[in-house]
C-alpha cells in the first residue's frame, strides 16, 4: 500500500523541468534525483519524503524521451504519479522502469497540495486520507499489467528469452 504527501502541479509538465538537460551528462539515479523538478519547483528535492505522491493535470511528462525523467522521480522517493493524462513516451518509460503511474481525472480535480493520499495500486483505488474521498483509476491493459508484474520491461523480456 502506497501512502504519502501530495505535490501538486498543472498541465503539460515537461521533461525539461522534471530533469533539465544540463544534468543529463550522467546516468546515475542518485545524481539525477538531486535535481528532480528543479526548474518547476526548486524546493521539491528538499521537501520530498520517501513515499510522496505527485498529482498533475494533462499531458504529464511531455517533450523529450529522456528516461532520466521517470528515473529522477522514482529515485527521489516518489511512490506514484497521478495525472489526467501522460505523454506517451513518459507513459512507456514509467511502466518500463517500474515507476507507478495512474490516470484519474476525478482524483486530480479533488486532490490538493499537501493532502495525504493512499493507493492500492493493484486495484487502482486512490483514497484522499485528508478528506476521506475515494477514487477509482482506469485499469491498465492486461499486457501492461504483465510488464508491471514481472518488474519492468527487461525482466519481462528476460522471462520470454530464457
Amino acid at each position, binding site marked *: 500500500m502506497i501512502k504519502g504527501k501530495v505535490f501538486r502541479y498543472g498541465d*503539460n509538465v*515537461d521533461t*525539461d*523541468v522534471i530533469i*533539465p*538537460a*544540463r544534468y*543529463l*551528462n*550522467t*546516468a546515475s539515479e542518485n545524481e539525477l534525483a538531486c535535481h528532480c523538478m528543479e*526548474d*518547476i519547483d526548486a524546493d521539491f528535492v528538499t521537501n520530498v519524503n520517501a513515499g510522496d505522491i505527485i498529482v498533475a493535470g*494533462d*499531458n504529464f511528462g*511531455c*517533450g*523529450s*524521451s*529522456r*528516461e*532520466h525523467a*521517470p*528515473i529522477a522521480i522514482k529515485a527521489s522517493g516518489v511512490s506514484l504519479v497521478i495525472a489526467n*493524462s501522460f*505523454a*506517451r*513516451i513518459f507513459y*512507456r*518509460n514509467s511502466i*518500463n*522502469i517500474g515507476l507507478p503511474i495512474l490516470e484519474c481525472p476525478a482524483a486530480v480535480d479533488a486532490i490538493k497540495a499537501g493532502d495525504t493520499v493512499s493507493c492500492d495500486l493493484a486495484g487502482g483505488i486512490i483514497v484522499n486520507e485528508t478528506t476521506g474521498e475515494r477514487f477509482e483509476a482506469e485499469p491498465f*491493459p492486461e*499486457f501492461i499489467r504483465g510488464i508491471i508484474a514481472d518488474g*519492468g*520491461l*527487461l525482466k519481462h*523480456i*528476460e522471462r520470454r*528469452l*530464457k
Partner: protein
Amino acid sequence: MSMTMSQKILAAHAGLEKVCAGQLINAKLDMVLANDITGPVAIKEFEKCRVSRIAYPDKIALVMDHFAPNKDIKSAGQCKVCRDFAEANGIENFFDVGRMGIEHALLPEQGLVGAGDLVIGADSHTCTYGALGAFSTGVGSTDMCAGMLTGECWFKVPSAIKFILRGKPEKYVCGKDIILHIIGLTGVDGALYKSMEFTGDGVKHLSIDDRFTICNMAIEAGAKNGIFPVDDVTLGYLKGRFKRKPIIYAADNDAEYEKAYEIDLSSLKPTVAFPHLPENTKTKDSWGSIKIDQVIIGSCTNGRISDLRAAAEILKGRKVAKHVRTIIIPATNEVYLQAIHEGLAEIFINAGAVISTPTCGPCLGGHMGILAENERAVSTTNRNFVGRMGHITSEVYLASPYVAAASAVTGRLSSPEEVVND
C-alpha cells in the same frame, strides 16, 4: 476493414494482415537508434540484463550528437560508454565526431532509414523519418535496449488524425510555419497517442526538407508518429541513398480517422511559437516588438541545406544586429560542406554570424549558446519550454530559418519581408 498508412506499416512488421486501433502488437524493427544521452542509460540496462546479446547489430545506430564534441568530462564519459559498447558489439553505425551529425538529419542522409521502415529511437524527434513514408517513433532507453535485445518492440496500434494540405505556400512560408500553425490548432496534446497523417494536393509543393521539419515536430502535438505519403519527391531523395528497397504503403481510401483538418497552405503566414509552449503560435502581424539577444539556426528540425539556404538568402549582403549572437549549426558534415561549396558559409561569416560544428547543443540547453537570465532567442529548434535553452527566466521563440535570419538582422522578432523590402 480498412487501415491508415501508419497501421499498414505496423501490420506488415507484425506479420499480420490487419490491425486495428487500440490493438497491442509486437513488431519487427528496421532500425533502433540512441544518442550520447539516451544510449548510456540503455547500455546500463543492457549490462544488467541476464540475456545480453544484440539481435541485429546492423540495425542499431548510435549517434554522438547532443553534447558532442564533448562539452565536459562527464559528457566525454558518456560518449566513451557508447564508443566502447559499439566496439564490443560490432555496431558499425556508430557516429562519432567527424562522422556524426544531428541524428535525425544524419540517418536519412546516410540512407539508414527509408520508405516502409519501422523505426524506434531513444529520442523523441525520431518521428522525423515519417517524412520518408516510414513509421518512426520516439521511445525511452529501456525500450531501445529491448529493441537491441530482440529486434522487436511492442506497440499499441494508434488511431489517426488526417491533415489535408491544400494549395501552395507563399514565398517565405515553409515547413516550420506549417507545423507551428498545425500545433497552434491541435495544442501540445491534441494528437496524444495518435498518428498525424499528412495528405492532399499541397503535399507535392513541399520539399523533402519541409516534410522532415513537419514530421519532426509531430511529437510537439503529442503524436506517436507523423507520416507523409511516398511520392516522386520521396523517391528522388531516397535514390542512390537508401541502402534497402523502399516499400510504399498508402492509406486505404476508406481508412478511419478520428478527425480531419483541412489546411489551405496558400493562406498561411510566417508563424512563431511564443514562450513557453509550441502551441502558443502567433502570425507576423501580432508579434509586437520583441527585442532579442540570440538567434540559433540549426537542429534536427531546421539544420538542413535548404534551411541554411533560406537563412543565407536573408543574410546575404546584410549584417546581423550588433547585440544579436547569431549561431548557425549545419546538422551534418555533408550539409556543412555543401554550405561551403555554395558560398553560404562566407555569407554567414560576412554577416557577423558564427558557424558551429554539427551538434544538438543549444536546442536543449546543452552547450554552444546557452541563454543568461532574462535573455531571449529566436530559434529554428523545436521546443520553447521553461529553461529549455538556459536560465529559467530566458525565453525561446520558435521560428523558421527565414524569420530567424530576419530577426538576427533587425535585432527583434521580424518577418523576412521586413528585411527584404527595407
